[in-house]
């Protein structure tokens, strides 16, 4: 298949007839918007029986939206879905399942309290006389499926306490019990160890051999080449190219995934770098991140790059004292942060702008001024009573400084647009004059205009001597804003790049484990 998005990227065309048989599933030109955000502009893919097909793209390329369309969770605004050549509309998740499409999400959706067998057969348990559940038969079925998959799982075991790998196997077993023709795996290996990945791949090979079409989403290119016969690449919500795996190489893939013009919208004045503000030494949280050491100096913006699930936000949470860590130390302005709590971190001059504004950054029902004043209350109270006038004064001051667009400061913060909500979160911390600002996905869900303002703000802050640790999945943002880039992969710091040597390809290589000639 040779569909492309009209020459925006490099085209690698597959031979016109690479297989004689027709595809099991075809999605063509699917689009999906959420409000003003166009999550999917051109979702197209063809899946063949007995083939594992890799779907690749950066974070936010539209892969997950496409998966949810195949799973019947989202309904495409336009586009065609063909199953065995017949057009089909999926009314919901159960319709997708009946049609023979099974989705294995990154986080398995099991019943933690119930047994493996019941998880697989919920609502469809085999019956004996009197419509009673035949547990023997049910467990026998599970053993059969496990044998077919070549795995050993006790059907009576409760799902709670199983490893993510085993839970995925249960999900796959569920798909098999439905006789699914198409099995979609959304980043199944993200949380698995090397041995578990091997087992999963054996299972995938078994599925292929039995004639199922497998759609495999992964950021690890070596895995893609090991298991997949065909590769489709997406970028910015649109189909870029599709080709057999043996006609592709790592360079071509990364180029297709990234290949966009470097945006020139970033203001970067290059502040003078001062004393060390944050030093992290060998920070470890078992199973989440390991042996992380780095420093951020005053006036410096350090970008923390990596794929989703690489442990970026988790490190931020540990520094801020939300999550405990098992080993390592955090120093602020030379002093070790002893008490591991947000209160201690705030007192030491840290501010955290979290990834999820609505849930973690703001109290949505509270007024704008109250939200802005929230971190500064100890300064605003007199005899333990918060002075409303002081709150309003503080908020009004920062609203002007950050050019906040609002109706009245007394309105709930929920009335603000996404970008202005982000400014309100920033104002909350800036009012405390922090020495270190940790900002997680600074411009997620923000319109382009306000995005530039947030970037300008970060640059100004650095100019004033604030140390900024910026987590971002948007590579242009990292490259445009950061003085240094730290790249995380699977909970480990794998590369530290200077502004001069960092580019999209070098970051993506490190983040996906494709460092040429470097043993990891």
């Amino acid at each position, binding site marked *: 298949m040779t569909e492309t998005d009209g020459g925006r990227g490099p085209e690698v065309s597959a031979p016109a007839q690479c297989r004689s048989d027709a595809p099991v599933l075809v999605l063509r030109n699917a689009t999906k918007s959420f409000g003003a955000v166009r999550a999917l502009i051109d979702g197209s893919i063809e899946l063949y029986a007995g083939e594992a097909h890799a779907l690749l793209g950066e974070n936010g390329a539209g892969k997950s939206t496409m998966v949810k369309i195949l799973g019947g969770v989202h309904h495409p605004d336009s586009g065609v879905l063909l199953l065995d050549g017949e057009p089909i509309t999926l009314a919901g998740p159960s319709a997708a399942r009946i049609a023979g499409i099974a989705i294995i999400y990154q986080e398995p*959706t099991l019943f933690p309290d119930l047994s493996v067998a019941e998880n697989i057969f919920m*609502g469809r348990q085999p019956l004996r006389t009197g419509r009673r559940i035949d547990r023997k038969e049910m467990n026998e079925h599970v053993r059969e499926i496990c044998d077919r998959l070549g795995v050993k799982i006790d059907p009576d075991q409760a799902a709670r306490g199983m490893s993510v790998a085993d839970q995925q196997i249960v999900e796959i077993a569920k798909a098999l019990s439905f006789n699914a023709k198409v099995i979609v795996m959304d980043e199944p290996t993200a949380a698995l160890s090397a041995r578990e990945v091997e087992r999963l791949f054996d299972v995938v090979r078994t599925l292929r051999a039995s004639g199922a079409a497998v759609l495999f989403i992964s950021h690890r290119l070596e895995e893609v080449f090991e298991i997949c016969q065909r590769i489709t690449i997406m970028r910015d919500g649109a189909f870029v190219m599709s080709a057999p795996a043996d006609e592709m190489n790592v360079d071509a893939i990364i180029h297709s995934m990234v290949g966009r013009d470097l945006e020139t919208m970033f203001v970067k004045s290059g502040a003078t770098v001062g004393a060390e503000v944050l030093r992290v030494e060998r920070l470890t949280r078992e199973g989440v991140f390991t*042996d992380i050491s780095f420093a951020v100096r005053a006036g410096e913006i350090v970008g923390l790059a990596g794929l989703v699930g690489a442990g970026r936000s988790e490190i931020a949470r540990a520094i801020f004292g939300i999550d405990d860590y098992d080993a390592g130390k955090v120093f602020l302005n030379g002093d070790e942060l002893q008490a591991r709590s947000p209160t201690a971190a705030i007192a030491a001059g840290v501010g955290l702008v979290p990834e999820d504004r609505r849930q973690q950054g703001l109290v949505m029902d509270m007024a704008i001024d109250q939200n802005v004043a929230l971190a500064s209350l100890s300064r605003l109270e007199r005899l333990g009573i918060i002075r409303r006038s002081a709150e309003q004064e503080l908020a009004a001051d920062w609203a002007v400084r950050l050019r906040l667009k609002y109706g009245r400061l007394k309105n709930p913060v929920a009335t603000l647009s996404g970008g202005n909500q982000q400014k309100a979160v920033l104002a909350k911390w800036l009012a405390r004059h922090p020495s270190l600002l940790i900002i997680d996905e600074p411009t997620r869900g923000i319109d382009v205009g306000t995005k530039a303002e947030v970037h300008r703000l970060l640059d100004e802050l650095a100019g004033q001597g604030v140390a900024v640790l910026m987590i971002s999945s948007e590579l242009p943002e990292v490259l445009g804003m950061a003085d240094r880039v730290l790249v995380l992969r699977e909970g480990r710091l*794998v*590369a530290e790049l200077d502004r001069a040597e960092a580019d999209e390809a070098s970051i993506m290589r490190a983040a996906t484990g494709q460092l040429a000639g470097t043993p990891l």
Partner: protein
Amino acid sequence: MTIASAVGELAPAPRPAPTPGRVWDIVLRARELGILVVIFAVFGGTTIYNSSFASSASVQQLLAGASIYALLGVGETIVIITRNVDLSVGSVLGLSAYVVGEVFLHNPNFPVPLAFLVGIGVGVVCGVVNGAIVAVARVPSLVVTLGTLYLIRGVDALVVNGVQIDPSSIPGGFIGVGVNNILGVPWIFVITAVVVLVVGYAMRTFRSNRDLYAIGSNPAAAELAGVPVRKRVFWAFVFSGAIAGLGGALWLAQFATVASTAGSGYELIVVSGVVVGGVAIFGGSGTVLGAALGPLLLNTINQALVAARISAFWNQAIAGGLLIAAIAFDRFVSLRRERNLRLRRAARGA
């Protein structure tokens, strides 16, 4: 490009030793057994102190006293398993007891089995109201049943309106169910045991009942699995109401007199008993047998204190302590498991 110098050059970061977590799986599964052991321990200990505690009359009193709580616990469990709660059971019991008494007051020859059906019917009506508001209007059950707790109590007071039901107006055959024994075992205990066994079996055996566990364990996944969530929740409330209605009839048979306060405060005793019995307050797990044993344990402790001549004040304090201990235990077990899982994964991923 420079590779971060920390990688590979220094020794690996210190790693806490993983602890095995298998023992706890077994402990958790044997919850019912654990409660039985505690019941017998309390019973044995008290008997050593006061041998009359093991007399047949004392044991009968123990079993009869726990029966209605245990019965209500069965209905409550079905609701709690779906991640809901029914706080109206005490009020439903009171209304049912009064309505049955009223029936006898006007028809002294009313057939005894039908009287029980009347009680169940009253409960079903109340359960339909609860279930409809929770499942159809999607109002949190805590609020709905807190409302119906007072509402039904108010209806009860209105209906009672000062009319006292006393033993003289209730047929002896009916009272016999509440106070007589069969082969030395109180009838009321036998009825409760039969309900526990039948419902316990049904909860294990039928698809629709496994749906209840699925709903409480992971509501979103239950929807994805095609479980008719609202329908199941509705019938769970109807069932709990029916059981509370049956409890009301048994209550009348046991005490032969009803005032408008009958059964008030039962809901909290029942919920605590059920939680002590190992039913997770957030749904998804627990058995009917455990839910029946919880109230039996509380009642055994209660009676033991009386036999040991310890102030009744301790009674409630111990019930409360036990409840907190049970929840703390569950929390402890789940935190431990979570940690073990993380460590095991880390060990394997290394």
